[in-house]
């Protein structure tokens, strides 16, 4: 589904992503792990087209992503959440999710002003979709809250919800449980498994919570200094000496 072919990103003299080869298969939860500064978010930024590759290629369903602008990537079926919830802080939860529907909303200013039946139908459908997403995330009660007033854990959920709005083929989640407590982490883990099983989402996950990664991932890729050092099913990666050494300095990965 998504293929990184010798993807390389250099910032001045620093190589953030070093000839990375990866293949993400449809319907899987594929995690990308590594120490801080390993280049994980840069990989997401290249897929989102915010960062240009120095060399290499990225293909999604055989389409060359590099031919697309950042605002066109969502139309390919790829959405993402952010490490530091890049939400529209002064807007309500409902409006944040509606912005996530922007590419699918077909109404112009004139039909809106006249409040034509087609506009009313679109508004009803959008609202229904938004409420379904809020209920799935169990945050329906927050729909009219202004995002900046919410605790960080709820903001993370809104961030994930916004990325889910267009039913993407590939959902990129950057540390979705960072700052969450155990109960919230478990809730997000269950949500991601449900998105995979019930909705057929493919999820590309960056996460530091190793328990969660090992529990829900189908496949794990490990990077360090931008270079892939291991990949495979969680049980294999967990016991890979290279991972234990590079990632944890000798500790057991499952207890990170």
């Amino acid at each position: 589904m998504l293929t990184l072919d010798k993807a390389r990103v250099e910032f001045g003299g620093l190589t953030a992503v070093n000839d990375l080869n990866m293949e993400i298969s449809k319907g899987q939860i594929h995690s990308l792990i590594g120490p801080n500064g390993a280049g994980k978010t840069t990989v997401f930024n290249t897929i989102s087209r915010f960062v240009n590759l120095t060399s290499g290629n990225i293909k999604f369903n055989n389409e060359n992503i590099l031919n697309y602008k950042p605002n066109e990537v969502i139309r390919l079926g790829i959405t993402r959440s952010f490490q530091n919830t890049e939400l529209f802080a002064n807007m309500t939860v409902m409006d944040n999710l509606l912005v996530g529907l922007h590419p699918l909303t077909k109404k112009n200013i004139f039909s809106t002003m006249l409040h034509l039946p087609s506009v009313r139908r679109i508004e009803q459908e959008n609202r229904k979709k938004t409420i379904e997403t809020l209920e799935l995330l169990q945050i329906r009660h927050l729909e009219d809250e202004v995002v900046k007033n919410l605790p960080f854990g709820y903001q993370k959920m809104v961030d994930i919800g916004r990325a889910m709005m267009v039913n993407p083929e590939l959902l990129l989640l950057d540390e979705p449980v960072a700052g969450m407590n155990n109960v919230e982490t478990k809730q997000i883990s269950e949500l991601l498994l449900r998105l995979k099983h019930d909705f057929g989402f493919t999820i590309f996950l960056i996460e530091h919570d190793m328990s969660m990664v090992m529990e829900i991932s189908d496949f794990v890729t490990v990077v360090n200094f931008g270079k892939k050092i291991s990949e495979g099913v969680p049980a294999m990666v967990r016991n890979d000496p290279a991972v234990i050494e590079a990632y944890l300095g000798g500790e057991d990965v499952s207890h990170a």
Partner: protein
Amino acid sequence: MEALLQITFGGLIFGSIYALAAIGIVMIYKTTDVVNFAHGEMAMITTFISFTFLQMVGLSFFVSFLLALIFAAIFGMTVYQAIIKRVQNAPPLNQIVVTLGLFLAFNGIAGLIWGYTPHGYPSALRGDSFQVGSVFMSPHQLFILGITLALMILFFILFKYTKIGLAMRATQQDMQTSSLMGIKVSQVFNLTWAAGAILGGVAGILTAPITYLEPSMMIDILIMGFAAAVFGGFVNLPGAVIGGLIVGVYSNWVSYYIGSELSVAFVFLLIVLVLYVKPTGLFGAKYVKKV
């Protein structure tokens, strides 16, 4: 008391025009991060265009008004695409120099085309003034209030309920994330400059009948528009409207009770006092924009 009511009403009329100018300035700043000092001169050119349709082509007031606003939209987008886009990410000082340069350029071009002799500009609604209670009001004053109110409602609906309004609000807060949500931010910038130029154009066309039409007609309005914008918090559209009305009424009071030559000075004295107490303006909050 009767004089106070009359002066206050007159202040609300000017305040409406300041509010229209302020909304355009704030909207452009909030979305594209550019303080447009040429806003008034763009409005003046739009007013001259409407005058050309009205007097030289012989079209009716409302047809000329609508055609001029279409011109304003195209003019705004052209200025953004041809000039502002190039300096959008430049240091603020460079942007200020560019928009001040446009101010002088548009002023000079208007003088070259239409001359510096003041022209009379007809009112949209003609007729005698009438009295409501102790306040005398003219049809044109009511037209100004009506148009201002209609535009406020229109822009409220635009921002609150339309797809492009949602995109504009999102882009105002975070350009990069908006782009990732599939929003064409360049289109949002174009539309913002178009909308800003339309609002300025309306302010110009409403001003001309109560002052005169000449290349420097909008300088006072621009100054008061900026005052209203700062008063309201500069990133807050309702604040700009309320700021405009307060500035209009207050400056009229100063003109009547102290002296018209001191009205601008007293307006800015009030603004200094407000900013001393509340540095973000009356309705402004600390605003952090992500780019």
